[in-house]
């Protein structure tokens, strides 16, 4: 490096004082130190920015000057409009949720002894690429509840609260006393009256769908003023059963909802027992119809379509939270640990509840840190690309697109409109500038 300091061939000007020569030497050394950085920045950053700004005023092929046409196009084209709308959702929702979640976790984690381990765990996703995170969540959001863990959980919770003993494939044989209504429910063909025993036979239920606890069908003998019977699977394994008759080996269908209807209105409801039996007590004399509502035959609940057009953006924001919450928590936690302990303790001694301490003291004191976290997240959210590119399945990509992905699609991904692409890039740059200015100013202040 030192050899660079004497310019080759050019002898120092005759008569220059040694001091001035030393001065010049120092400057040349200094330039040698910054030159590599300045060359790279000039060629690969400064020049491209200027080029992009200029390019954004030209048409797709770059041959015709179109003025602000690309910028106007941005707000006309439905695809870029979707991107702008989605970017707005991202920028508002993700930093807000992250800052809030980070604050809550930072406060709570101080109360446990394994705080460090917890922080490490939540921070770890920051090390992982968006690609890997994308694959992880693509897997978790898988729609089939037998594959996607999220839908498995959703279906599990749903079924725990709502009995799912339905028989989507069950049907009644024609002409054996049950008629199918257009909405999928079944009604007895003839009228029944109290004292009758009604057996309702179904077929088409695969053995795997019959609940394990099902017992051989045993119709209830209805007493006076009662209507009873059984819903059963009219099929004898191995053959030999008679259609329309409850045979010995035939099992009941438990968990069916049965209604007794009079004049088209349900007056009583029962659920079949393990042997398929049901009973309606204390019915007034008259003629009734027994009805099996369509819900008995509805297909099972399949969970949520996370990556469908409606939910894809919230779903990807969820993955983003998984990556960045640790960051927000650790940063806010650092601010928290430098709060004046005595102020908090004094308030507690005064009988302030934890909530009051949090609301009145912690949050106001942390406001500067919270702002920093929020602004930093805004900058990073603006540039989110890989996560959307990976998680959104092909057909849904246009519903999930944001400025950064749209810029890519327009310029390189088939659109090949580099004029519009450059305009989108410039817009992205303009949107990031305010947040960046904030960060740099704050940094300079913290330095002085």
């Amino acid at each position, binding site marked *: 490096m030192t050899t660079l300091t004497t310019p080759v061939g050019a002898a120092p000007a005759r008569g220059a004082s040694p001091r001035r020569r030393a001065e010049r030497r120092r400057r040349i050394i200094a330039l040698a130190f910054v030159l590599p950085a300045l060359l790279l920045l000039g060629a690969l950053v400064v020049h491209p920015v200027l080029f992009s700004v200029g390019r954004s005023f030209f048409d797709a092929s770059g041959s015709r000057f179109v003025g602000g046409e690309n910028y106007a196009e941005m707000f006309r084209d439905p695809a870029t409009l979707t991107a702008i709308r989605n970017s707005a959702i991202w920028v508002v929702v993700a930093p807000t949720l992250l800052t809030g979640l980070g604050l809550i976790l930072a406060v709570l984690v101080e109360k446990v002894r394994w705080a460090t381990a917890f922080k490490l765990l939540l921070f770890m996703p920051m090390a992982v690429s968006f690609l890997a995170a994308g694959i992880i969540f693509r897997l978790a959001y898988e729609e089939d509840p037998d594959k996607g863990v999220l839908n498995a959980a959703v279906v599990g919770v749903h079924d725990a609260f709502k009995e799912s003993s339905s028989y989507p494939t069950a049907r009644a044989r024609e002409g054996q006393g049950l008629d199918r209504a257009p909405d999928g429910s079944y009604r007895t063909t003839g009228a029944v009256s109290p004292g009758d025993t009604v057996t309702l036979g179904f077929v088409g239920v695969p053995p795997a769908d019959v609940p394990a606890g099902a017992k051989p069908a045993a119709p209830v003998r209805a007493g006076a003023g009662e209507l009873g019977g059984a819903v059963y699977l009219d099929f004898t394994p191995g053959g030999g059963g008679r259609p329309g008759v409850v045979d010995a080996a035939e099992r009941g269908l438990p968990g069916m909802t049965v209604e007794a209807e009079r004049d088209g209105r349900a007056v009583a409801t029962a659920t079949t027992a393990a042997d398929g039996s049901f009973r309606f007590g204390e019915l007034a004399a008259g003629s009734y119809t027994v009805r099996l509502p369509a819900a008995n035959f509805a297909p099972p609940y399949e969970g949520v379509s996370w990556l469908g057009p409606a939910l894809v953006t919230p779903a990807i924001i969820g993955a983003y939270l998984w990556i960045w919450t640790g960051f927000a928590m650790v940063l806010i936690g650092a601010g928290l640990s430098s709060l004046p302990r005595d102020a908090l303790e004094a308030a507690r001694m005064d009988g302030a509840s934890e909530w009051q301490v949090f609301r009145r003291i912690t949050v106001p004191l942390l406001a500067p840190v919270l702002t920093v976290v929020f602004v930093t997240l805004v900058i990073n959210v603006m540039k989110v690309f890989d996560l959307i590119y990976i998680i959104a399945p092909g057909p849904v990509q246009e519903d999930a697109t944001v400025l950064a992905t749209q810029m890519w699609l327009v310029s390189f991904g088939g659109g090949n409109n580099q004029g519009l692409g450059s305009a989108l890039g410039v817009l992205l740059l303009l949107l990031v500038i305010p947040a*960046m200015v904030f960060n740099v100013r704050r940094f300079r202040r913290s330095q002085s």
Partner: protein
Amino acid sequence: MSATVTAPPSKAPAPAPAPTSRPVPGRAAGGRLRRWLGNGLVRAFLVVVGLVWVTPVAGLLLSSLRSASDNAASGWWTALTAPGQLSLDNYTALLGNAGITRAFWNTVLISVPTTALVVVIAALAGYAFAWLEFPGRDWIFLLVVALLVVPVQVGLLPVAKLFGQLGLFGTIPGVVLFHVAYGLPFAIFLLRNYFADIPREMLEAARMDGGGEWRIFTRLVLPVGRPAIASLAIFQFLWVWNDMLVALLFADSSSQPLTVELQSQVRLFGSNIDVLAPGAFLSLIVPVVVFFAFQRHFVQGVMAGSVK
């Protein structure tokens, strides 16, 4: 490295005057019970959050250890009760996959030189901006800081054109140069500010001893700046290791890193989890090892780098 951790304001709202009466014992006991119950709730909540964070990764790991037919038939959680499903077959297949292994080495060949170049070039420039004098120094530094805002997206198109003319498009050196250029503004910003805190007397003393600037730089500035350099290096390494966007454009099929190789397979998601899951795991294990090996520097590096 307090790049993002602002000092909290020193003036707190004056706390209420000290309590005048001691709390009644009964109330204290009630408070203790409440606090104990509250802590139980807090613990339970944090455990649930922790599980939510672990589950997706566990899903990836277990999926990567199951056969394609198992993954097609049932969820990864069934392996918890039937560990017989797990085997290393997918990984053996992956390591025999020429595309994946080459992509892995490409990732190394891109991220290691990038990190080294960014650190060296930024350290030189950072020292010059902090302690050497040349015309327009402060203005140029301000310009460099202003370049922090430029998102890589803005550079893609023009640099692609430039690299096309230079024959660098689709090559590893092209990808490296792009990453270096876009890593520099932040790196210079960080190191200049760190170097500027070196006490002037230390440098003057070194100059008095007759040390040239190069000597001062290598013998004094670099050793003193080691914590900042370590954080920068880790951040930069991860940034490049995890990058997909830049390589997606600038690398061709023979120079593409793991992220790009894997994303090309995502199109067939569902039918090739046996390749994607172990591939994703391979790509994330390196950063995670770096994470646990250099925890402190890592957290500082990521914290500082996030201002970008």
